[in-house]
């Protein structure tokens, strides 16, 4: 224990723990011994505190490390009326394929719920809700939804296929355009969807599904 409730000791300990936490989160595995040698007066405290926070941070870490590998493309090249051509992108919720709708002979984008989430009733509802919500929107900057269906228990929805690059590419390429331009690009779309800010859905780490797409000219299509 810091001697006589010395607040200076607590303060320094706290700073050291903060630094230790930060290093741990950056992927380093700092040694407790190193800290004890550097701050011998606090060595006993450090030996109590640092291994404990390392355990907490390590337990948190398990989430990231144990994440399953990205889902492989579905074994079927055919989903009902749709002939799958290639994967366009994937996000936390689904995989988007370029596909041909055989009966109508047209090119479509097919968003399929990730295999991993198939048994999660909540995620299925959310996926369906996403399709319904998108289908209600009508705007030149928003990809139209043609339909929703299920194939062997796997829900999917059908969108117009649009050539161009994903919004994520635009956002991550400041050389091409200022990052804020991407936000400005979608503001007309935002007014179409009530008061919702036009924002990559928080569930998607990288918004790679082509719901909002930008042509090579940088203009929304």
């Amino acid at each position, binding site marked *: 224990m810091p001697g006589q409730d010395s607040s200076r000791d607590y*303060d320094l300990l*706290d700073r050291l723990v903060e630094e230790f936490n930060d290093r741990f989160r950056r992927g380093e595995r700092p040694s407790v011994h190193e800290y004890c040698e550097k701050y011998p007066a606090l060595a006993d405290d450090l030996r109590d505190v640092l291994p404990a926070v390392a355990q907490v941070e390590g337990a948190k870490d398990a989430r990231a490390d144990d994440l399953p590998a990205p889902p492989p493309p579905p074994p079927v090249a055919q989903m009902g009326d749709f002939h799958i051509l290639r994967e366009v992108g994937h996000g936390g919720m689904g995989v988007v394929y370029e596909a041909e709708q055989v009966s109508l002979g047209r090119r479509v984008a097919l968003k399929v719920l990730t295999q991993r989430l198939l048994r999660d009733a909540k995620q299925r509802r959310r996926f369906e809700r996403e399709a319904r919500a998108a289908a209600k929107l009508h705007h030149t900057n928003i990809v139209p939804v043609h339909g929703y269906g299920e194939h062997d228990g796997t829900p999917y929805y059908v969108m117009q296929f649009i050539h161009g690059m994903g919004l994520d590419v635009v956002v991550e390429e400041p050389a091409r355009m200022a990052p804020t331009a991407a936000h400005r690009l979608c503001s007309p779309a935002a007014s179409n969807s009530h008061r919702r800010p036009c924002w990559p859905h928080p569930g998607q780490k990288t918004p790679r599904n082509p719901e909002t797409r930008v042509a090579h000219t940088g203009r929304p299509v």
Partner: protein
Amino acid sequence: MGTAVMADGSSGTHQLVGRARAGDPAALGDLFARHRDRLRRMVDLRLDRRVRGRVDPSDVLQDGFADAAGKLPDYLADPRLPAFLWLRLVVGERLAKVHRTHLGTQMRDAALEVSLYRAPLPAASSAALAAQLLGKHTSPTEAAVRAEQMLRVQEAVNALDPIDREIIALRNFEELSRAEAAQALGIEEAAAAKRYVRAIKRLKDALGG
């Protein structure tokens, strides 16, 4: 990433205030994007499990963003908190509203815990901490691999009293900096430092290490 921003929270604030006052409509969005992971963790941690089936954390976050857009002029007029903590507060208020709407009178126990805060954020429940440790999409098999270590930490964190649990939630799960955690609790940094170090010591005892 988050840490550099945290340590230098004030420059983010200056930037936001400067850009927003200059009429840049993307300033708030950029700020929100920069802190989204931490805000999301906050919501995951504090969304009552009884509401979970009905309310999606993403929706809370999105509604919180809309709230922030509405409250931005007031904040710009008198920015008392660093921008990130202000956003966290606005999202927390939205979360409290969600709880009131869905839980109504069942709020009693949660309300008790709210008194720990100056800000009306719902308390991080032990169940939510457990869920964070286990990860949302981790399959039972994967969870089993590290289950022992995770469960030990989980039990130890749950065994702490709510004040200790809260400071650990802020510092290790929400990943707030020392200064941010102190401001979020409305106490001096020195007091927050002492609280955190003592909480970790009790956690160490609970871990049996």
